[in-house]
C-alpha cells in the first residue's frame, strides 16, 4: 500500500467527495491558495472553482452560521477553520444552531444539517494558551453534534468521508502534531465508520483509552512498559459521539484497570465522561481506581518546560499505568 501524509489524506477525502457529490463545498480562510505548501485544501480550487472553494473573511461566526443556512437549503458545507481556538467566536452557530435546530424546528420537515467543521487542536508546539487548546469536552457536552478525532492518515481520510456523507453536523478534530504524520492509505474508496473504537494495541494488564495525539503518547508509554513486562491495551475511540462504550467496557472487563489520557483540561472532561461510563457499567470489574492523565485545568503555557509540565506526556502516562497496577 502507498504511504501518504495526514494532510494529503484529508485533501483526498475532500477531493473525492466533492467529485462524488456536487452539493459538497469547502469554505474557510485562505482555501483559495493553491501553491506548493501542503494544506488540507490544496489544489481544490483548480478543479472545483471559486464557487465551491470559497475563501472567507476572518468572520468565524458568519462562516459557521452560513454552513447552517446552506445545509438547510440542501448543501453539504465543509468549513475549514484552522485552529479550534478561533471557533469560540462561532460557538452559538455550532452548538445552538447546527446542534439544535433539527430537534427544535425541523423534525416534521425532515430537516437535516450535513455540515463538517474542521478544527485543528492541540499543544506541544509552544503556541501558548490561545493557540493550543483541545476543547473536545465542550463539543461533547452539547447535544446534536457528532465528534470525530482522527489519529492516522488512514482513519483521517476514512472518517472525513464518513463525516461528509453523514446527515448530521460533525466536528472533525485533527491534531497539530499529527498533521505531519505519514501512513499507509489505500488508493481505492473506503470509509471508516463512526462509533467503532480501534484497538491500537492489544494487552492483558491495563486498558488505556486515549484520543488524538494522546494515542501516540500512550503507544510510546506502552512500548516502554513492555520492557518491564507490562502488557498494555490502547484503545482509540476515533469518535466521541457516537462513543463505542461497549468496546471500552469490554476491554476493562478483560484487564480490570483503566487509564484515560486526554489533552483537554481535566475538569468535566472527556476523560471524566469515559471514566464514569466505565464506573456505571463495569464497576465490579475494576481492580483499581481509574487514573486520568490530562491538563490539570490550566491555560497552556508557552515555554517548553512549562508546557511539558501542564500537558500529558509519555512519562506521566507510564506513571499512571504503574499506579493503577500497584493499587
Amino acid at each position, binding site marked *: 500500500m502507498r504511504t501518504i501524509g495526514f494532510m494529503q489524506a484529508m485533501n483526498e477525502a475532500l477531493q473525492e467527495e466533492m467529485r462524488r457529490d456536487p452539493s459538497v*463545498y469547502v469554505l474557510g480562510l485562505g482555501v483559495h491558495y493553491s501553491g506548493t505548501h501542503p494544506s488540507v485544501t490544496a489544489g481544490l480550487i483548480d478543479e472545483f472553482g471559486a*464557487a*465551491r472553494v*470559497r475563501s*472567507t*473573511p476572518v*468572520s468565524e*461566526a*458568519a*462562516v*459557521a*452560521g*452560513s*454552513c*447552517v*443556512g*446552506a*445545509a*438547510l*437549503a*440542501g*448543501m453539504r*458545507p465543509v468549513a475549514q477553520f484552522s485552529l479550534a481556538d478561533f471557533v469560540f467566536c462561532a460557538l*452559538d*452557530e455550532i452548538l*445552538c*444552531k447546527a446542534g439544535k*435546530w*433539527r*430537534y*427544535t*424546528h*425541523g*423534525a*416534521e*420537515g*425532515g*430537516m*437535516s*444539517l*450535513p455540515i463538517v467543521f474542521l478544527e485543528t487542536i492541540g499543544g506541544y508546539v509552544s503556541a501558548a494558551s490561545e493557540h493550543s487548546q483541545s476543547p473536545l469536552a465542550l463539543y461533547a457536552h452539547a*447535544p*446534536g453534534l*457528532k465528534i470525530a478525532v482522527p489519529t492516522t492518515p488512514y482513519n483521517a481520510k476514512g472518517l472525513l468521508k464518513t463525516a461528509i456523507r453523514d*446527515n*448530521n453536523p460533525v466536528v472533525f478534530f485533527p491534531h497539530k502534531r499529527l498533521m505531519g504524520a505519514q501512513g499507509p492509505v489505500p488508493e481505492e474508496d473506503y470509509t471508516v465508520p463512526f462509533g467503532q473504537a480501534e484497538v491500537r494495541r492489544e494487552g492483558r494488564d491495563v486498558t488505556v483509552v486515549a484520543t488524538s495525539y494522546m494515542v501516540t503518547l500512550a503507544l510510546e508509554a506502552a512500548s516502554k512498559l513492555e520492557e518491564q513486562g507490562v502488557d498494555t491495551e490502547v484503545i482509540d475511540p476515533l469518535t466521541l459521539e457516537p462513543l463505542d462504550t461497549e468496546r471500552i467496557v469490554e476491554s476493562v472487563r478483560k484487564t480490570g484497570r483503566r487509564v484515560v489520557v486526554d489533552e483537554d483540561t481535566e475538569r468535566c472532561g472527556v476523560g471524566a465522561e469515559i471514566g464514569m461510563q466505565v464506573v456505571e457499567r463495569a464497576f465490579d470489574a475494576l481492580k483499581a481506581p481509574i487514573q486520568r492523565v490530562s491538563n490539570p485545568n490550566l491555560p497552556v503555557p508557552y515555554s517548553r518546560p512549562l508546557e511539558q509540565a501542564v500537558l500529558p506526556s509519555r512519562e506521566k502516562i507510564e506513571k499512571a499505568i504503574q499506579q493503577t497496577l500497584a493499587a
Partner: protein
Amino acid sequence: MEPASEQLLEIYTNMVRSRAFEELVISIMPKGKIPAGWMSGVGQEGIVGALSGLREDDYVTYTHRGAYYFLCRGSDPGRILAELYGKRTGYCGGKGGRHLADTKHRLFGKSGTIGGHAPIAVGLATAVQIRGEDSVVMSFFGDGTSNRGTTHESMNLTSVWKLPLIWVCENNGWAGLTPSSMSTAYTDVADLAEAYSIPGRIVDGNDVLEVHEATREAVARARAGAGPSLIELKTYRIREFAEGGWFPTGYRDPEEVEAWKKRDPIERFRAVLLSRGVLTAGQVEEIQQKAVEEMQVAQKFADESEFPPVEDAFTDLYA
C-alpha cells in the same frame, strides 16, 4: 410600478390577518395557555409589503417579533398557535414554541439569539448562488440586532460574495428597554450599507406601499445577480417588548407611543385603498370578519390538540 388591485388586496388582507393573530394571542395570554412570552408585531405590519414581493421558492429569515412572516408565506395560524401552546400539532411538535419554523414554506427556524439569523441567511444565499438558481433570501432584523457582530460579519460577506440577499431592518427605535440613542452610534441603520458597499435605502415602514416598492426593487436586483441591498423600515413597536406580563413597563414616553398609534400602517393603507376605490367599506368589514373567524378556527384547533407524548422529547436529535 404600482401593484395590481388583486395584490393590493392581498397585502391588506395579510396585514389584517397579522393583526388579528396578535389580538388573538393578546386575548389568550391572561388565560395561561401559552406558557411563555410572545413578541407582538402590532404596529409593524408594514413588513407585509416586503414579504409580498417574494416567490414561493425564495427564503426568509425572520425576527422574534410578529407572525406576519408566517401568515404571508402560507402557514396555518392554527398550527402556529398550537406550537405556542406546546401542542403536538404545532409546527415544531411542541419543541420550539415561539421559536417557530415552517420548513415547507422555507421558514427554517427562529434563532434564540438575535443576530443568529444573519449568518444563516448568508448560507441560504450561498446555496442559491452555488446551484445557479434565481431564488433570493430576505433577512429581517431589528435595530438592536444591528449591533451584533454577526450582522456586520454577514453584511460584509454578502457584499464580498455578491449574494442574492435583501437585508431588511425593522427599526422600531427600541431594543427592549434600551432606545437606539443609547446603544447605536449610527442614526440610520441604512448607513451601514455604505460601509459594506451595497445599496441602502430608508423607507417609512408604516407605509406598506413604500415598503413594497423599495423591497421589490431590491429583490429584482438580487434575482438578477447584482448582489445584496439593505432597506431600513422606520417603524415602531406599539406593544411592550413582550406579551405575558413579565417584562417591565414605563420606560417609554406614553406620548411617543400615542403619536405612533396615529400612524398605524393598517389604518393608513385602508384609507389609501378606500380613497382609490380599490376597497369598499363592505370589503373592509368582510376582510376583518374573515380574519377574526380564521383566528377562531385556529384557537379551536390549538385548544383541541393534544400535548405531545413524553417519548417525543427523546426523538429527532439526529437525522
